């Protein structure tokens, strides 16, 4: 057919083309790009992305998704529930009433759609399941409780309390409500939200439809987190915001695809809903999303309607909650609620009441203190108990067992174990005595609290006992890890922390439960000792059946205790995906069983596993927030916070944000030094991380100091043959490499390689690290073929361990390419380098220095092949990436300037060359330059100035300086000096050079 005419075009746009014509049109569009483009342009103009046609105003609640899935029939089994009837449907899915035969009650069953696009099903479901589990953790009278979550075919289901309720909107319509009543209702709903935030759950879609008012008048918040999760891959962003979310109530950051909505986004939506409930209209005058955003950005909250009874102070609070910048809102939901209760009229009365209460309390304390006296002797038993665990006989047995292994470092290990356990047990005695006296002598704490503290302390002593028993039968492997095991004993402060204690496991009520708890504790202590001693497989074998029996007994608290070390062990054994799954299970059990410490630690571990190991950075950042929330819920814990900072720092590091990384690492180091001492292994771990960051920050001397200190600590504590020592050695080789100390690099990587191969087997990723360093140094020493073989082995291992996609693999590939390039195999090198660019950008982001490095390498490969024109865009891009950053990571800028300058020279553009080379010669990056960089930049600038006839006398001076530098740099640069001399000789005689300024 011919090109489209008007009537066909109109019918096409209206979707009313009869099928026969439609296929004709298809055939035409297939061959006529111009018609196709007209259609596309027309469609885009007709229904721009902010809403599908027919939804001209975006401020109406979204239409309920048309149920494409057939409704479930009565009696269908979903999980253990039987469907009764369909109650309704919303954007997220369909709600049924259902019967739970196990607990003989009716529940509401919500079936959530995972996503329209088949491809995302797996991912979407896992995501939704996590979110749902997070919701299930929230337990609060003002939150609709979630009983259960699970999957049903491709969908996720939630079993919730069946609430007979009306939505807030219906409640408001049903009768006139005085503002105080509305406010009281919102305060309750806000308390529910606060509880959710404390559990690390953001609602994401607060609106009147999600606030239910029951027959009892109680308000409940429902549909947590669904708006964000139900469609994690919103395909129409930024126009159509989050599917299911309702734009009218959304915070501006929720409408922005780059921003991260958090608890303060809920605060915003909460204030929109409150404002509407109080005034009968929403706070911003807007008919479309675009207008709405504009109004919010300018902060134009409508004036209150004439005659509104809402007091001005209340309006001020809401307006602050509606700030465009989350930083300008209240710091938390709690703070907002406090402000909402700050009715000046009511304040005075309350203050009087509080003062009275305090006075009363003081009197009571004075009296009890007077009564309780001279009962100190009741609490003297601690020392005696300790003697059975860490007495002279145990110590002697351990010492001889250690020395009997004949390991050269057994003596040192023993010294270290003894010192660590002495300190730990001394603190234990003090803590226990104080705890006892607080109840028995000073009567400050109730018996019940004492019981909890004692229970906690008994547990700690059991850990010491398990460790000493293991040490008394030590073999060489145990001795290797003994020091680390001793340091890994759980800190005692937590037994004094009343908040943390209150969060402890419920005391077992019957004898059977008590016996089970005791068995579980023994398993745990033994597993922890095995793990600390490096016997991972044994520890896993011990934990797995214990996890099962805890689950069978319905003991979530205990299951969480066991799952955490299990997950960590699985990662040590090289199965990060399994580890991740287990850690999620741990989180779930911990939250459900209110095991807050495990929850915090499991989230922290997940930051590492999902982020650094599996390179799912976006997820890892969310886990970090969860970990923070979990720690906060415990009332804060400095050591856990520091451990989380270590993980966060590492995450910043791999993503190329070195300033942020170092901040986290410095803070963590200070805190851990204070807790464990400057010579502790904990501190050494952080030093190594900080050392790597310093290298990236081009502060090589600092890196050297930190790394050497960490290596020394590890060597003393663990002996020379320990893999951790070898790892620290590898960190040190990086420093030496940058200092050009090839001999040390070779020596250290060879010994490390031997340790890794022996201790971890030939296929471990650490082996590959050592091989790579060795390959680099071997090539520098002129044995290219050998280097290539080593590097290929490293690549094989990395591919096996990490898969093709990881950034680790890309880096190994690019190192291989570098070797190839140095051996003159430019085509191959170029292909490899090119191949790394896209995955590096995808994994590490557009500003990562490794991405710049990859571009620069491509450019230089082209240069090597004298294809200067093709080199140019790569070098420019490399420079653009580097100049987009605040810092100058690895001091890459200078080298890139020089390469670019030389390329301009080869392209006969001396003026442009001179421009960038001046930057290098003047050292505008401020980073420390190498001798080579200084010499090459001068030489290249000299040529640029000469060839462009810009300043020939200066050119000659610079050339002279460069020549002197090269001459002092040894044999490798003889060739360069020869080349320079040839260049000089080719120039016209200096006498004919006009002096600068005379022309």
């Amino acid at each position, binding site marked *: 057919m011919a090109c489209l005419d*008007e009537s066909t*075009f*109109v019918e*096409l*746009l*209206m*979707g*009313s*083309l009869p099928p026969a014509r439609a*296929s004709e049109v*298809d*055939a035409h*569009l*297939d*061959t006529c*790009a*111009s018609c*196709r*483009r*007209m*259609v*596309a*342009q*027309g*469609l*885009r*103009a*007709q*229904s*721009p*992305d902010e809403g*599908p*046609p027919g939804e*001209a105003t975006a401020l109406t609640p979204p239409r309920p998704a*048309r149920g*494409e899935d057939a409704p479930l029939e009565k009696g269908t089994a979903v999980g253990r529930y039987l469907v009764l009837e369909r109650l309704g449907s919303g954007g997220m899915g369909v709600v049924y009433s259902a019967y739970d035969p196990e607990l003989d009650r009716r529940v509401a069953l919500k079936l959530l759609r995972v996503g*329209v*696009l*088949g*491809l*995302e099903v797996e991912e979407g479901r896992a995501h939704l399941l996590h979110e749902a589990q997070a919701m299930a953790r929230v337990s609060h009278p003002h939150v609709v409780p979630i009983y259960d979550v699970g999957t049903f075919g491709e969908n996720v289901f939630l079993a919730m309390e069946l609430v007979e309720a009306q939505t807030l909107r219906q409640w408001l319509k049903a009768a006139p409500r005085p503002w105080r009543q509305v406010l009281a209702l919102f305060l309750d709903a806000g308390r529910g939200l606060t509880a959710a935030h404390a559990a690390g759950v953001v609602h994401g879609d607060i609106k009147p439809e999600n606030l239910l008012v029951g027959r009892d008048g109680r308000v409940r918040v429902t549909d947590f987190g669904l708006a964000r999760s139900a469609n994690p*891959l919103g*395909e*129409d962003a930024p126009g*159509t915001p989050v599917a299911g979310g309702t734009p009218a109530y959304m915070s501006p950051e929720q409408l922005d695809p780059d921003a991260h909505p958090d608890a303060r986004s809920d605060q915003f939506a909460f204030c929109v809903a409150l404002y509407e409930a109080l005034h009968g209209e929403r706070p911003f005058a807007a008919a479309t999303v675009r207008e709405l955003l504009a109004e919010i950005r300018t902060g134009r909250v409508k004036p209150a309607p004439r005659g509104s009874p809402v007091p001005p102070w209340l309006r001020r609070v809401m307006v602050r909650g509606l700030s465009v910048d989350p930083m300008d809102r209240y710091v938390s939901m709690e703070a907002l609620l406090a402000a909402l209760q700050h009715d000046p009229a009511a304040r005075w009365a309350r203050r009087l009441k509080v003062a009275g209460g305090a006075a009363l309390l003081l009197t009571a304390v004075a009296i009890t203190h007077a009564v309780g006296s001279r009962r100190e002797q009741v609490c003297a038993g601690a020392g005696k108990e300790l003697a059975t665990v860490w007495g002279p006989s145990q110590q002697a047995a351990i010492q001889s067992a250690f020395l009997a292994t004949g390991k050269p470092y057994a003596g040192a290990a023993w010294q270290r174990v003894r010192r660590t356990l002495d300190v730990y047990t001394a603190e234990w005695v003090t803590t226990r005595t104080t705890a006892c006296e607080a109840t028995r002598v000073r009567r400050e704490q109730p018996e019940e609290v004492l019981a909890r503290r004692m229970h906690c302390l008994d547990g700690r002593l059991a850990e010491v006992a398990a460790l000493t028993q293991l040490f008394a039968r030590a073999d060489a492997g145990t001795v290797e890890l003994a020091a680390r095991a001793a340091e890994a004993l759980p800190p005692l402060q937590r037994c004094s922390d009343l908040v943390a204690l209150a969060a402890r496991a419920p005391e077992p009520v019957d004898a059977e439960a008590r016996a089970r708890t005791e068995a579980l504790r023994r398993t745990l202590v033994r597993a922890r000792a095995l793990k600390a001693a490096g016997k991972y497989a044994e520890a896993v074998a011990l934990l797995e059946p214990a996890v099962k029996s805890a689950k069978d007994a319905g003991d979530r608290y205990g299951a969480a205790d066991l799952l955490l070390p299990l997950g960590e062990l699985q990662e040590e054994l090289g199965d990060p995906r399994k580890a991740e799954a287990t850690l999620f299970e741990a989180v779930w059990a911990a939250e459900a069983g209110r095991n807050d410490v495990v929850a915090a630690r499991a989230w922290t571990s997940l930051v590492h596993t999902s982020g650094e190991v599996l390179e799912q950075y976006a997820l890892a950042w969310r886990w970090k927030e969860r970990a923070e929330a979990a720690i906060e819920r415990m009332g804060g814990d400095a050591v856990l916070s520091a451990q989380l900072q270590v993980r966060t720092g590492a995450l910043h590091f791999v993503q190329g944000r070195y300033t942020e990384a170092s901040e986290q690492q410095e803070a963590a180091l200070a805190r851990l030094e204070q807790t464990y001492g400057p010579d502790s292994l904990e501190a050494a771990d952080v030093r190594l991380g900080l050392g790597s960051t310093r290298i990236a920050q081009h502060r090589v001397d600092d890196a050297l100091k930190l790394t050497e200190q960490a290596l020394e600590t590890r060597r003393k504590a663990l002996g020379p043959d320990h893999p951790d020592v070898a790892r620290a050695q590898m960190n040190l080789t990086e420093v030496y490499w940058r200092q050009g100390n090839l001999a040390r690099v070779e020596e250290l990587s060879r010994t490390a390689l031997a340790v890794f191969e022996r201790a971890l087997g030939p296929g471990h990723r650490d082996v590959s690290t050592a091989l790579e360093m060795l390959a680099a140094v071997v090539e520098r020493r002129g044995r290219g073929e050998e280097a290539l073989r080593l590097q290929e082995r490293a*690549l*094989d291992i990395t*591919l096996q361990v990490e898969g*093709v*996609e990881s950034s680790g693999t*890309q880096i190994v590939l690019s190192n291989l390419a570098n070797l190839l390039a140095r051996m003159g195999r430019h085509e191959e090198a170029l*292909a490899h380098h*090119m*191949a*790394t*660019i*896209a*995955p590096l*950008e*995808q994994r590490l982001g557009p500003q990562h220095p490794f991405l710049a490095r990859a571009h620069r390498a491509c450019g230089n490969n082209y240069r090597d092949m004298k294809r200067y024109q093709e080199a140019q865009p790569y070098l420019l891009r490399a420079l653009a990436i580097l100049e987009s950053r605040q810092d100058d990571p690895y001091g890459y800028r200078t080298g890139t300037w020089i390469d670019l300058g030389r390329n301009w020279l080869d392209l006969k553009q001396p003026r442009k060359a001179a421009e960038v080379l001046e930057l290098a010669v003047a050292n505008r990056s401020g980073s420390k330059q190498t001798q080579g960089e200084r010499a090459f930049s001068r030489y290249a600038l000299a040529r640029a100035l000469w060839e462009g006839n810009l300043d020939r006398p200066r050119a000659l001076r610079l050339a002279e300086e460069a020549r002197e530098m090269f001459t002092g740099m040894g044999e490798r640069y003889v060739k360069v000096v020869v080349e320079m001399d040839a260049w000089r000789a080719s120039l016209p005689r200096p006498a004919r050079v006009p002096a600068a300024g005379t022309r």
Partner: protein
Amino acid sequence: MQALHRGNSRNRITGGGVIVALVSTPDVSLAQAFVAARGGTAAPESLPSLQERLARVLDSARSAWPGVELNGPRYVGHLARLLAGEAPDEDVEKLNLPDVYLARAAADGLPAALKAFEARFLPEVDAAVARLKLPPTGLDEVRQLLRQRMLVGSAEAPARLAAYPGTGPLSGWVRAAALWLALDWQRQRSGQAQVDDGDLSVLMAPGDDPELAYLKTTYRAEFNASFAAALAALEPRQRNFLRLKYLDGLSIDQLGALYGVHRSTAARWVVGAQEALLQETRRLLTDRLRLTRSQLDSVLRLISSQLDVSLSRLLRSRLD
């Protein structure tokens, strides 16, 4: 007699409530006008029920546009012409009756109708045209042209509004017609160098996937040939879907609107087309690579085994 009288007097009688002079004869004027416009005859006994239906239709259409007084027989006659020849009379109620009413009235130049049309439909149309980002002069010219063609017409073409078929909403129809005018204007002005962008190989930009990039640099020719062959094997509609989605950047909703299907159906179509493309590419590529297997080193072997995954991820990432 009466029917004839009123039928000729549309310029004088503006109200609908003309008093029927003879009480004994029921008024079937609307029915008669309707039957006449359909070019047929009807049994006299069927007229009263048709009259009743049309009176109801007229009332509801009128009430949507208070103040717009279109002559009743004129309106039903127009409705009759819009119906397909073989469609039963009842089908008249399937049309967008108030929209047809206004379109007819505006095409007839009734001032109240022109005003209503201007206020209700043109702002949205202007907004749609504005999204095409024409130069300001072009925008004005297109607006002028639109009003001229829609409302006034010329010697050889009557006011275009009279051609509104009544099947979809008037707003969409006017908007589509306006967009046609604008795009046509643009096409004529720019002289449009016919850029042939029918090349879906952007789908294979090496920016997305390491394996793919590797393959591409190494076996560029094989890859391109496989991809092109796989693409050629698709249905024209599948190709259009992929082009409209990836080259022209339409969203799933817009694709659904184009083919008059729900977004989930459109999404399924896109995914289906991709899937077909992928599988065929992979099949062809495996065939071709087998010929040169001796050249595959260990990395490449791994890559080809994962090609499946990487291609689907590539296309998925494009879909997000």
